[in-house]
């Protein structure tokens, strides 16, 4: 075992994993994230804690992870290279290991321009692929990025993101291969709506044998309203939302029910895609819907490792 995390045990034993996401508050209350996380305990194998998501300042992901652990939820520490240089990233990783965090997701992060501090200086000292390499080296070689030795273990299960819907399409698989070579044990993809494109991407992934070198968790974003569907279709770079789904949301009598239905249909299709080892449900500001989705998708009960 690399980390001994629940997520690692489930994926390495060949079972279909379920993860979800939990955003910390724009404030100091520990209850907010614990209230979001606790009901998801029984339906998810691990819960991602976002790191200043969309470049909006929130409680730090590391603190959020600790708070989730207190209520028995296994966290995935999301970390972006936008806000921290190599010193800060490594310092937080040591702290995370000391605090018993066992999963980390290494990301570039949305550009600061999108957030609530658009005039901030972006750090981007290293990129997400170099970050993966750094974490792997810390775990496997007990070395900092400068080559110096680390005292103690850094048992982290290392995750990365992949976006099959960004351009250029053909290069996306090459970039995934780079992330795996750099150290990604598992992958959480961008939210999938365009199943045809995802299937095509997965074929390219399998052709390179990459599905055997990492565990791919397919990303899902339950759509709450037609407004959200339109926003994602038009304003989120790197997200592909077919018009047909926007129309379905627009025509629906009960948009929330339609959104859940769409999500469940996507999960059914994803279960059949060879090389997909789980799902990652990103119910942004709709965390309480996750138990129902997991239940109705037939993914309950979760394995106890």
């Amino acid at each position: 075992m690399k980390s001994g995390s629940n997520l690692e045990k489930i994926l390495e034993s060949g079972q279909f994993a379920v993860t979800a996401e939990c955003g910390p508050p724009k404030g100091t209350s520990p209850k907010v994230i614990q209230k979001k996380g606790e009901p998801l305990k029984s339906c998810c194998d691990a819960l991602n804690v976002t790191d200043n998501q969309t470049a909006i300042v929130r409680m730090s992901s590391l603190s959020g992870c600790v708070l989730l652990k207190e209520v028995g939820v296994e966290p995935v520490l999301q970390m972006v290279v936008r806000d921290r240089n190599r010193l800060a990233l490594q310092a937080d990783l040591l702290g995370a290991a000391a605090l018993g965090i066992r999963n980390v997701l290494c990301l570039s992060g949305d550009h600061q321009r999108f957030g609530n501090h658009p005039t901030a200086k972006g750090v981007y000292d290293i990129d997400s692929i170099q970050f993966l390499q750094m974490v792997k080296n810390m775990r496997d070689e007990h070395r900092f990025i400068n080559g110096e030795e680390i005292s103690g273990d850094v048992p982290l299960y290392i995750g990365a993101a992949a976006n099959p819907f960004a351009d250029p399409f053909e290069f996306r698989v090459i970039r995934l291969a780079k992330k795996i070579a750099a150290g990604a044990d598992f992958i959480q993809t961008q939210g999938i709506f365009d199943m045809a494109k995802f299937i095509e991407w997965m074929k390219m992934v399998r052709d390179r044998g990459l599905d055997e070198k990492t565990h791919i968790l397919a990303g899902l974003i339950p759509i709450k309203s037609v407004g959200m569907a339109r926003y994602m279709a038009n304003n989120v770079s790197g997200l592909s939302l077919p018009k047909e789904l926007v129309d379905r949301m627009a025509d629906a009598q009960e948009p929330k029910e339609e959104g859940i239905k769409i999500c469940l249909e996507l999960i059914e299709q994803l279960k059949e895609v060879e090389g997909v080892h789980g799902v990652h449900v990103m119910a942004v500001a709709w965390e309480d819907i996750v138990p129902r989705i997991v239940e109705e998708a037939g993914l309950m009960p979760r394995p106890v490792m």
Partner: protein
Amino acid sequence: MITVEQKKLEEIAEMTKGHSRLLILGCETCAAMSLAGGKRQAEEVAGAIRIARKMSGENGKIVEDAIARQCEPEFVDLVEEGVAQCDAVLSLACGAGVQLLAERYPDKVILPGCNTSFLGITEGLGIWSERCAGCGNCILDKTGGLCPIARCAKQLLNGPCGGSMNGKCEISKKVDCVWQLIIDRLTRLGRLEVLEEIFPVKDWSPAGHGGPRKVIREDLTS
């Protein structure tokens, strides 16, 4: 070249207020190519300040001049007389020119008439764009002659990030994704496989993060 943009006239008028004898000094190289701070623009700015001062009733004398390069001492020394006769100099050069003037004329007020934008190229009439970040360690041989340090919003060395769409950057549909351009160009050159290697972590110290930079050529100084 170093691309500069002229400051707004209101800002120039405000900072030059009270300096009754004013020398407006153009720079005939980069600032002139930027159509912002050459001889012609020095004349235009001088004319505009004269009019503004007439309106506000401020007295004084405005003189304009230009030199080939404000970043070279030998040229800066050419205007010694003109500088001596004024209360302040409004330099239309880049920040380097402004500072060399200040260095050569320690007792004179030196003011910036332009904002220094970037190291760039002229795309067309009235359009300039950034090409070089002066990072001190050129990697253009590895990226198909297109620079991700200067042209990727995240300065990724292993791009493109997940926000690249239709050849554009996630920050704006008006900004090209340089990684798309790199991939296109390397594909055309039959060299795309170079991008399968993981680009190592960059040493940012020669990029300015190691403190102010200086180049010393021993062969020329000794």
